[in-house]
Structure formats: C-alpha cells, structure tokens
C-alpha cells in the first residue's frame, strides 16, 4: 500500500496538503507534486518507495511465548540426549559459552521430559505436550536452528523485538507500521496483548512495544484482556457517548476557528486525532464485544470474554486482523522453567496449545491465513543441561532453539535447520533473529537493507549492521 496516491492527494486541497506535509520540498518538487508526476509517497520526505516488492502478506501476528519455551520439549527431538541422560555435559559443547543461572555449577545432560511423535505429511516431530500443534503439522514451518544473542529475559526480548539489546530502539511492530502505514482509521496499527494465567511470570516491559526513535504514533498500544481495554478509551463516569461526541465536536470546531485566525497544520492534525480518538472509543467496545461470535467459534478457541486468557486474546487477534491492524503481538508469559518443567509445560501448553491451533485454523477457514504471517516462539530456548530449581528444569539457552512460522508465503509442513546431537548449538541452516526479521519484512514487501530511519546520524535498520538474510528455503 502506498501512503498516498495521487488521486487521494487530489481530494485534498493542494496547498493545504503541502503545508500539512510540512516538508520543504523545494520549488521543483512542489512543481512535480502539483503535476502528479511524483507520487507523494516518494516525495513526502518520510521515506521510502514502499513496498519494495509485491507483498505476500498484509499483517503479522506474533505469538510470543515469553520466558523461553524448551525446544527440547516441543519440537527438537534428540535421541542422543536421552542416551546421555544424567551424564556430565561434554565440555566441548559448553566451553566459553555464556551460561545464565547454571554459572559455576556442574553441568549434566537432561534427557527429554516428553515423548515425541511424527505428524503430518513430512513427519514433523512434535512432543506430546502439544497435541493441538500436532493437528497443524502440515500448516506450520518449524525452524529448529534459531540463535539469539541475549541470555537474560529482559535484554533477550529487547533483542527479539528491536534487533539490539540497547534500549530505545523501535519494536518490529513499530517498524512495520512506520513502513507500511495502517489499514484502519479507528484502531492503532500495532496492538499488544499479554494474557493472564500460567506460572509466576517474568515481567514484560512496555519497552518491548516502544516506537523508540520512530514517531510515537507507531508505538504499540496495549489492549487489556480485562478491565478497560485501552487506557482512557472509556468516557469519564457520567458522560454518555452522545455527550462525549458533542464535546469532541466542540473542541474540533473551536480548533477550526483557531486555525482560521492562526493557521497551523498541527491544528488540523489535532482535529483529525480527536476525531480518531472518538472513533476508537466506539470501535474498541465493539471489538471486545463477542456477541457476534457464534458459540462454536468461542468453543474452538476456548475464549471467555473478559477473562484475559490467551484463548480470548487469540480470538481478539483474529478480530483485530479483520479490522486492519497491521501488527498484533500476543504475549503469554510463564515459560521460564528452571524447575518443575514438566508441571509448568503442562500448564502453559494447556493455556496456549488449543487457542493457537484455533487462531490458525480460523484464519485459514476465513481465507485470511494467506495474507497473515503467524510467528510462534520465545525470546530464547532452554539448555540441554539439567537445572533443578524444585523439580527437573532447564536454564536459559541462546545457541539453538525452535520457533515456527505459518501463513502467506511460508512453505507449510516443513522443518528447517537443526541443532547438534544434544540440541545445544544450531548447526544446520542457522537462523539468527536478524534473519527472522529480514524474512518477515520480505514477506511484507520490504527489503530490510533499504528500510532505514536516520537516528543520531545513522541509517538505522531493524536488522542492524551485521549480515542478515531472508531465509529463502522456507518461502513458497
């Protein structure tokens, strides 16, 4: 989608448009704009000749399993791990590697805590913890060779979302909205939801959906599963919707009057912002009102309106997708299983497995999966080594873990890449977080090399300065 095409420019008073755009186009650019020889999108000074190529997808739904689910109990089956169970972890794997909570401790191999089976036409290995995932083996592409660079939760999320562990950079949802704009004028283009349930969860910072140095309209807006869905979206007590409308109209009229006395493009923008604020006040309650959802759909997800569960958020994600929201980021916390891994895997999988299947299946049956990219995974994986913080568990692990992608442009039903015989290092077709970003942007029609924003003198990219590659093997 172009931000503006020339026919749309047509419908705005040209002078206004130009002054609104607030960009010193120079006389030549002005001339060409008026002659419609240059599309506004390329001359508006923001950037960018986007999309760079034909997009495969319109939107992204990122299902973040925060805390770091164990790849060794979900998708990555290693017979050698079971054989070595209880033995000292060979030093050849761990020497010189960053270690989190197991620093200074004796390292022992911990065999799988789950059974694996093969599912789907290509026989994807999926553990018994995830029976609903097994049903969609033919829809998802499992990447078994992920690597990241940060071993503690907070920086690892920051790395996954922004491509660097330094705070203050834009989250990928902000990048995507900055690049492609929004398809809705009544909801934010980047919505974040974090579900309740699970074990004592790791905190998650709003930095993870920050627009960083990008303009703040691209920041992720958090929707709450319980209580007020968006901060300040509800009228103050005693104020009816009709009254609020009249009040906002009054503000806009007065601003209009002011704009005649003291013309300022900011005033026009403010009027538009207040109008959109009111539309949000109407649209958000409609969004969370599931009255138009048949019972079998609610059952399919296991959604209960207002309970704040991952299931309900998955249904909300579909509804947001239908309404044109560009980037939907769902967090489910509680995957940080240093101990009692078996017990808590059951808890987490019970809360997320079926709803994930329901979301994918529902999008598919509505013909929306082809235009959506679903990404599933945590900020890192877990060690092949034993940790015993109350029952068997595993520590943080960044050198090899699994994620999956599904939807438009992704080859369904395959596995990509792999770890070594103990599931420690990614060794085949390694996919770095940057490659994940590059691939996601590619599907959205964006060449990550050319997608930059100037900040402190640098042309900053989501994929950073180190090499990043589109993972072509997983594309259709």
């Amino acid at each position, binding site marked *: 989608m172009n*931000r503006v095409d020339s026919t749309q420019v047509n419908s705005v008073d040209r002078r206004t448009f130009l002054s609104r755009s607030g960009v010193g186009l120079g006389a030549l650019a002005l001339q060409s704009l008026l002659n419609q020889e240059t599309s506004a999108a390329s001359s508006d000074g923001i950037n960018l000749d986007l999309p760079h190529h034909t997009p495969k997808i319109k939107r992204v739904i990122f299902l973040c399993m925060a805390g770091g689910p164990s790849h060794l109990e979900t998708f990555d089956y290693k017979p050698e791990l079971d054989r070595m169970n209880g033995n000292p972890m060979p030093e050849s794997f761990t020497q010189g590697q960053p270690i989190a909570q197991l620093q200074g401790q004796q390292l022992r191999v911990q065999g799988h805590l789950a059974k694996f089976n093969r599912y789907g036409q290509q026989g994807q290995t999926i553990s018994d913890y995830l029976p609903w995932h097994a049903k969609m083996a033919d829809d998802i592409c499992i990447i078994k060779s992920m690597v990241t660079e940060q071993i503690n939760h907070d920086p690892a999320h920051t790395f996954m979302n922004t491509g660097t562990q330094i705070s203050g950079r834009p989250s990928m949802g902000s990048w995507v909205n900055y690049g492609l704009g929004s398809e809705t004028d009544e909801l934010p283009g980047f919505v974040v939801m974090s579900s309740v349930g699970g074990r004592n969860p790791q905190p998650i910072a709003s930095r993870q959906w920050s627009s960083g140095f990008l303009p703040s309209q691209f920041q992720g807006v958090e929707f709450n599963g319980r209580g007020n869905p968006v*901060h300040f979206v509800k009228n103050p007590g005693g104020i009816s919707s009709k009254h609020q409308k009249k009040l906002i109209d009054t503000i806009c009229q007065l601003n209009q009057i002011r704009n005649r006395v003291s013309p300022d493009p900011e005033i026009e923008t403010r009027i538009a912002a207040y109008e959109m604020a009111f539309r949000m006040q109407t649209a958000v309650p409609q969004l969370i009102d599931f009255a138009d959802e048949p019972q079998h759909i609610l059952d399919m997800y296991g959604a209960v309106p207002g309970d704040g569960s991952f299931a309900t958020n998955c249904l909300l994600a579909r509804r947001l997708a239908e309404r044109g929201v560009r980037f939907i980021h769902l967090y489910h916390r509680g995957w940080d299983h240093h101990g009692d891994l078996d017990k808590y895997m059951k808890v987490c999988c019970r809360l997320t497995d079926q709803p994930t299947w329901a979301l994918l299946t529902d999008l598919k049956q509505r013909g929306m999966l082809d235009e959506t990219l679903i990404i599933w995974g945590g900020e890192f994986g877990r060690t092949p080594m034993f940790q015993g913080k109350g029952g068997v568990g595993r520590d943080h692990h960044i050198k090899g873990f699994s994620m999956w992608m599904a939807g438009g442009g992704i080859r369904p039903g395959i596995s990509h890449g792999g770890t070594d015989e103990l599931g420690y290092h990614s060794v085949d077709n390694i996919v770095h977080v940057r490659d994940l970003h590059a691939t996601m942007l590619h599907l959205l029609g964006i060449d990550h090399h050319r997608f930059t924003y100037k900040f402190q003198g640098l042309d900053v990219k989501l994929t950073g300065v180190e090499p990043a590659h589109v993972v072509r093997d997983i594309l259709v």
Partner: protein
Amino acid sequence: MHLTGHIFRFSAILLLVLNGKAASQDLKNAPSEMMPSTISFNRDIRPILSDKCFHCHGPDEASRATELRLDTQEGAFANLGDYFAVVALKPDQSELIARIQSDDEYELMPPPETGKPLTANEVQLLTRWVSEGAVWDAHWAYKSPKRGKLPEVRDSSWGNNWIDQMVLARLEKGGMDFPGSNPIHPSPPADRTTLIRRIYFDLIGLPPTPAQVKKFVADPSENAFETVVDELLASPHFGERMAIYWLDLVRFADTVGYHGDQDHNIAPYRDWVINAFNQNMPFDEFTRQQLAGDLLPEPTVQQKIASGYNRLLQTSHEGGLQPKEYTAIYQADRVRNVSMVWMGATVGCAQCHDHKYDPFTAKDFYSMAAFFADVDDEKHFRVGTNRLPTSRPPEILIFKDRKSKQSYERTKLELQAINRKWKQAKAKREAGASQNQNDTSLSCSPEESLEALDKEKKLLESKLRALEKQGSWTMVTQALQQPRVTRLLPRGNWLDETGPVVQPNVPEFLGPLELGRRANRLDLANWLVDGDSDSGKLTARVLANRLWYLLMGVGISQSLDDFGGQGKPPVYPELLDRLALQLIDTDWNLKALLKTIATSKTYRQSSESSDWLRLNDPYNQWFARQSKYRLPAEIIRDNALAISGLLESSSIGGQSVKPYQPAGYYQHLNFPKRAYQHDRDLKQWRRGVYVHWQRQFLHPTLKALDAPSREECTCERPRSNTPLAALALLNDPSFVEAAKHFATRVLDESDDDFKTRLTWAFELSVSRSPTPSEVDVIESLYRQALSEFQSDQNAVNQISKIGDRAVDDPFDAELAAWTSVCRVLLNLDETITRN
C-alpha cells in the same frame, strides 16, 4: 468505496503530519536542490562525504575499503601511487570526480549496492568544490568557537542585541546563501499576551495568571519584558522547568529499568538539580559535582547527592545475570550518556568498532569507560532485592534539617550501645545457663536485664525507623580504592579478554590528557568544562545549542544529539559560537545566557508563519519567526492543574508523587508484583516533574505526550499529535478532576451570566476573551449539557465522584455542565500550545 478512500487519505495525512521528525528526515537534502553562491566545506561538502563515503573511506580502519580515506585532509589529498583522489582546481585529474560520474557500474562510487547513490546535485556540488579549489576545513564541531566581527546590517533599527544583528544580517541576504535571494523580513513582534504566555511556559513551565497578563500588557515601561524575564529567572519554578530537560538528558527515573524494574532511591538527586538551576550554579561546577562530587576535597552532602549522576543508569539483579556482562553493559551506558550529554557525540557507536563517521576509535570508547571503573556499584548483583525500593548500595540517608539528622544519628548510636549490651547479656546468660544449669539462683539477674534490654532495643529500633522515614535515601558514587581493570573488548564482546588494558582518557583526537598519573572522573569533568581550552568551549557549544532550543523550539544545529559528521551543521555557526563564548566568558552563567536570548528581538517575534516561510523554511532554521509547538507532557499537566487551581506548588522538591493511573497498568511487572496506589494527599496535585518515573511503564498520559522512558539520553522529545494523547487529555481523571475544579472556580469567582463566566474561563485558560463565534459554539454545548444533566441526576453524581479532592459547592447539573465546558477549554489546541 468512498470510505476507503477517506481512510487512506486520512492516515496518509496523519502519517505525514503527526510528527515533524519523520518528515524532517530528508530535509537535509532539500536546500541542495539549489546551488549556493559559494561552497562551504562544512555546510555543503562534508555532509555528503560523511553520509555517502565515510562508511568505507572513513575513520573505521577495519571497514576501510582501500587506502583512501576522505575524513581527513591528508587522506583526501594523499598521493595514492598512480593517482590522487582530489586535486584542487582539477576535477579532470581527480579520481573522486571520475568515479562519482562514471557510467560503469563497477567503477561508480558509491557502489550501487550501498543503496546510497549521490544525487545529481551532490555530484555537481562535489565537482564544483574541486574546481573551485577544494578548500578543506576541520569539522565545525571540533573547531574552537570563534568570536568573529559582528556583521553589518542594513536595517539598524531592528534588533535589541548582537543575536538580532547576526540573525538579521543573514535574513537580509535571503537566509540560505543562494544567488539572487531576496531579503527575508523577520516576523513582527508577538503581541504582548502571546509573549508573556511564551516566556512563562519557557522559563517556569506554568501559565501566567490573568492578573500577571494584565499587568504586563498595561506596563508601558521600556524594560517591562526584561522585568518579567528577571522575575521568572528568579522564581523557584525555574529550576523545576529546567530540571525536566536535564532529567531527560541524564535519564533520571525512579526505577532500575531492567527486569523487575524495582524502585531505587534517587529523588534527592532531582532536588539537587532543581536547586542547582535555581541557584544558577555555574555549569562547570554543576558538571564537576555530578560526575565527581565524591572526589572533591571533603565533599559535602550535596556534592555526594550530585554524584548520584553516575548511578542513574538502568541496572539489574535478575537471577542468572553474569556480573561481567553487566559491568560491560553499565560502562557502555555511561560512555553513551556522558558523551551525549556533554559532547553531543555518539561515542557509543565505537563500542564494537571504530566510529564509522567520526574520529572516535574503539580505544577511545573504552578509555572513556575506564573513567567509571572506580564506581563502586557492583554489590547489587548480590544484594539487590525484590523489595521496594530495592537495594542499590552505596546509598546515603539525607535529612532536610540538622535536627532530625542529629536525632537519627543519636538514636543510631544509642541503638548500637544497646545492641552491644544486649549481646553481652545474652552471651552471659548462655554461658551462665550452661555453667550453672543446676543453680537457679544465679540465672535470675542477667535474664531480667536481657528482657529489659530487649524491650529497650525494640523501642529504639522502631524509633530509628520512624526517624529514618523523615529522611530520604539516595544513591551516591563512592570510588573504589582499586578501580576495575578496563579492557578494550573486541567487537564489544565481554567474553573476549584478549583486548589490551586501557587507562582512563578522553578521545585521543581531542586530547589526550597527560597527567602522569591515572586520570579520574574529576579530571574528565574538568576537561569537559575547561573554559580555557577547546574541550570546554566545545561543550559550551553543545550546551548553548540546547539552551537556544529551549527558547526557540529548534536548535541552531538541529542535531541536538549529534555534533558529529552525520549531524546537521549549524545554520548560524557564528551565532552559535558567540553564544558558546558568552557561556565561557560569564563563567558558565546559564541564566545570563537565557536572558540574552529571551530579550532578543529574535525571541520576541511572532510565531505566525507566512505561507512563504512555511514552504521555504518549514523547520524554522532561519529564525525569521518564533516556533509554535505543543507543550511538553509535564507542563500540560501543570497547566491544567494551575488553571483549575488544584496545583500544589508551594514547595519545591521531595519524593516522587503518584497521580491517578489506570488500574492494572503495572500488571506485567513482577519481582515483586506491583500494586499502584495513587497519592491521596496534596502530593496528588504536584507538578509533573515530580511524577513517579517507572521506566518500564511510564504513566500512560506522560507517555502519550512523548515523555521518554529515560532508559537512554533524550536530547529532544518528539512532538507527536495522536489519538492516544487526545484520549488521555479527554478522559484521564487528572484532567477531568481539573475541569471540575476549574468549573467551580468559574461559578464561584465570576459573575452570573454565561458570557461573563465564559470570558473569565477563557482568560484563565488562554489569556484572552472568546470571540462571538467561540461563545456560540460553547454555549450550544453548555445548553445541551445542562438540559441533559438536569434530567440525569445519576450522571451528575458520577461526575461529582471523579477525583479525590472534594468540591466545596453542592455538585449540581450546572456545575456538571460547566465541567464539560472546562474539559473543552483544557483540550483546546491553544491551551496546550506554546506560541
């Protein structure tokens, strides 16, 4: 479909306009659409070389593609064996020109795959530069500021001071240096009402009262405005306003930032900043105390508090963190901050490699990090707790007055004495018990005294806790006897210990310091603000640019955060130099510089923009007008509270305050779980600068209004204009409560008829009377609201319950209707705009 078209058009406009920053990105190229009459290396050529060439032919040796480097004069003119990149006056012998004009894609520079082609205009500029003699000049920001001759102006009647003379001279030449440019006329002076509102917001962050406006408007004396400026600079609220900006720079917040984001003790540092501005502490002293207060001879308590600067960064005690990694993270954070705050430099870019654009090497980065290797703050890796506040030693306890400090100290000594006695008694009893198990007669007395001591001990402990609560803990800097060893980390990798050990030093090309001993933070501070040498003058230029920005809305160099090659050169370099030198000459007198700027005619211009100016100078680089922009987040809050009469501004400083906040906003915080309790006393209505700054979840209204999380240095906040901000101003209970109290003021303090009341309310919120059409529009809302509320007592009751502050009058339909009117007034563009 019509609707769709509307949507696209609408979002496009939003995208284009919501934030000037987005749109400003490529502006840099706009002036180059035209050819200047003379080529200025720093203005016209270096930015092209930096952006398009330095990546491979710049300071970073590792990524230098060939022996050619274009960031130094020697490099650019070097004999490269059989060719020269640049031969002055001879473009046809200059390989650089041949390569940028080449048709061969393998020859062409920059290589097409970099995605950074030169524009035709840039090629022409470079070619002209070579043919006109290839004059080289040092990068403007690293040159010592010079006080040149003041330029001649044709119109000698305009202008109050040298600032005006320098601005006008440029405007008379037509702003940019284009041949045949027509003179630009400065804008007429702002009307007096606008002017007094502007200076109030700029200097104290509060609106003038109607009486203050009236007095100034009616004051015929020549120095009426100067008097106001002096009054405001002397106001204790001046420090609060300035602190907002400084706290952004140094990333001051109430919480640790990483992981559990627990509270930490630091509020006294904010008080110190406010007081320092109010006392007009010279900036060199201001700098020394923050970077090295603890290293000053016999440091005072205040100097120790100031040294809390080194503790403001984000910290963590997340389980499983590797101390060595976080030591590396912290030192990098400190280098980024100190270099950005004082040098306007992105030294942080040299963490993994030499800087790509500026002459900072990776060794410079780690040499600067080494200054902080004595900061003794690593205990928290072990003793950091998930309590609120967490533990971040070293911390000191500060008391407001000597008396409470003394009684605390005394009680502490008493408790220590009792503890000793108690221990002795306990030991005695235990010894006695084991020795005389059968002799009950002897065990009586020690046990009795132990019991008594126990009681006394508990009493003293609770007394001490109570006394402690009268004080405030704050993090300070203490120097380690033996600083940590600092190594250059290859590619920034903390696991790699093969890099050489480095000593504290300033960037080599700007220094280095040669002291014959290990340099410390005090040496760094002294170097940064040494007015006798270039290092201090460069700092003064960074600072002057930011002070100018605070009063004009735009910097003279628009890159407040990058004085390097990729930043924008100043549009008025001589003016910036002179401002910097005034700082030096006045021994870093900040108030004096602010006054010089504020009393200039340039400052006092109208901010109304002609179409021509808006088109030709959209970002106000020429200062042929004032700027107009939305107030900063905290000041929007202060303004609403001041208008409503709720503002609690009688005291300065103190602990952070907690305004109303949506329930559950902290639900994602953990370690510990957080329950937010808004303040129920007068603290609720204190100024925004005191609001609790939760790095991971900044108050949603502040956030919607672009206040930064303060995880990193912020030199310039974006000025966005979004639906989320609209929702906050419309519905945040702080603003609705302010509207309610504003409404009661209207009814209590003004006469009966609607128009008189509305006029009074308008005066209070925007310092002027409403026009007849404005009256009509509002009256229509008022009538509708009144009839609605008259038939809906329930609604009136609900409105009456918003906010904790009781309304004295009986809350009725009329008050409810006026509340709606006041909500409108608090939301007006004019109310929240500094004009």
